[in-house]
């Protein structure tokens, strides 16, 4: 099946990515469980979820590195592999070493030579902060510098669709800020950007839509604000009166979906704060400093991705 990729149609009304009932199994593990989602052109999407939620699997499927066990994947309206070979997709995968003996500039040159519409070399180096490192051997770079080379290779082909799998993991605060500034600029120029992260603040500040994955399923999908609003959870905080106060039973209070404890300070995440507080009082437990608050994005995220079944946010 040979295709003249340059001649492939890429109509702009076709979604950038479509998953339709996609599952992927690795041996006994179901990494992705009947996921369906559609990503429009020009959207900036955060794929959010704890480790093992299926983020990298989803990206691998969208890039054609992995084949789905069931369901269909369309990238830019085509099979994922075809879309990647067309040169309209850029990707920065998680981890991954650079080849021994290659110079940074040579890797950028390679990525540019593979693309039908490369970004100018100097611009690629500048945007990835590699201008002064172009002559360096790629196998002598630090983790953060290696990450930047991977980013340079992802953008060298001036892609319409950019995938970034936990892109800022090895970066310091300064490079992280510069990196996201650049991504915002890319997105503003009309590119579709999908990035996986487990940093909530990154998702909140950069994405205009967050898709939350947990246990291989989409558990929430919406704008950061909608996500916060959609979560019915409240947090109930209090301090136990005595350290020996039995903690057992607190997690079983009505409405409670999560418990965290720091010393004597207990934080409950509950879906029915009224019922939880009533039951807490009735239980006879001795406590002080009772406080009930709306969930922040952190709490919402915890509630959405906890092991207990949760309602799907709109």
């Amino acid at each position, binding site marked *: 099946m040979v295709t003249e990729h340059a001649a492939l149609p890429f109509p702009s009304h076709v979604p950038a990515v479509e998953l339709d009932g996609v599952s992927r199994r690795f041996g006994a593990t179901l990494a992705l469980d009947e996921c369906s989602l559609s990503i429009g052109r020009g959207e900036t999407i955060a794929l959010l979820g704890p480790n093992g939620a299926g983020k990298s699997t989803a990206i691998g499927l969208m890039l054609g590195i992995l084949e789905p066990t069931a369901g269909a994947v369309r990238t830019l309206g085509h099979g994922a592999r075809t879309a990647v070979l067309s040169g309209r997709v850029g990707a920065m995968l998680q981890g*991954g*070493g650079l080849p021994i003996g290659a110079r940074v500039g040579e890797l950028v040159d390679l990525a540019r030579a*593979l693309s039908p519409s490369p970004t100018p070399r100097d611009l690629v180096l500048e945007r990835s902060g590699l201008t002064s490192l172009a002559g360096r051997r790629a196998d002598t770079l630090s983790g953060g510098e290696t990450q930047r080379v991977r980013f340079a*290779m992802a953008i060298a082909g001036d892609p319409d669709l950019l995938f970034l799998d936990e892109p800022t993991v090895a970066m310091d605060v300064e490079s992280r800020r510069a990196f996201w500034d650049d991504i915002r600029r890319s997105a503003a120029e009309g590119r579709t950007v999908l990035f996986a992260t487990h940093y909530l603040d990154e998702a909140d500040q950069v994405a205009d839509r967050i898709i939350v994955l947990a246990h291989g399923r989409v558990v929430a999908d919406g704008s950061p604000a909608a996500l916060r609003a959609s979560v019915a959870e409240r947090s109930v905080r209090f301090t136990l009166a005595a350290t020996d106060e039995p903690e057992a039973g607190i997690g079983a209070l009505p409405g409670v979906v999560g418990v965290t404890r720091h010393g004597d300070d207990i934080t409950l995440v509950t879906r029915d704060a009224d019922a939880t507080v009533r039951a807490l009082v009735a239980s006879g437990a001795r406590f002080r400093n009772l406080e009930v608050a709306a969930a922040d994005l952190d709490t919402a995220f915890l509630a959405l991705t906890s092991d207990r079944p949760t309602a799907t946010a709109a």
Partner: protein
Amino acid sequence: MLASRLAAPAAAGSFRPLLAYLRLEVRRALRNRRYLVMTVVFPLVIYVLYTAVLPADGGDGTTIDGLTWPVGFLISMAAYGAIGAAMSQAVPVAMERRTGWTRQLRVTPLPGWAYVTAKAITAILLTVPSVALVVTVGSLINHLGIGVGDALSIVVALALGAAPFAAIGLLIGYLLDAESAQGGMVLTLFTMAILGGLFVPLEAAPPVMATIGSMLPSSHLANLGRAAAAGTAPAALDVAVLVAWTVAAGALATWAYRRDERAGG
């Protein structure tokens, strides 16, 4: 042979990715100093040691395929270097699978067949400096007077004849992990060299060994080189055996590559 899922290139323009990647591979390979030691220094040292203890004219007039002993043995060592150079992609392939570089290339427009082909071509190209240096330096040391024309035909014969070893190197790189690939490659190299009669001529070996040796590509590669040195046409048998090994090892390497690709490597 690298068919269907590897997708053959449609137009001449489709070779652009292959050439772009080949350029990077050749540059990388030439920066690897270990390669020089294994494929140039080692065969030359063995050559000098052997020819220093035996008279330059072969003493009793021993010849290998009609060549004087020092010339015949020089071709054996050049063949050894060519085999080592051709298999030199085993460790890089295994390493690049582990570090995720191959996975990273799979999210670029570089087709899978182009990566494998670039590796194979690199392996063949690496035999050129190795054979050229071994033949030139060996000839100078022992005053063999091998002319430029003869040297060139030896280089071409050994480079093309090393194709089965390029395929075997890729097979090792796809079958073994990064730790075992080096050992697997060295073991294969020595097995091929010793049983193929590169260190001790097959004529001097016990019949069973000679029979085994005559089935290995290494003995036929050396024959090919000697024919080039003698200025005679390559024997059909040598060519046939080398082609058969290339096809078989190439098919296995393709299978191993696809297996790795399916695993998401």
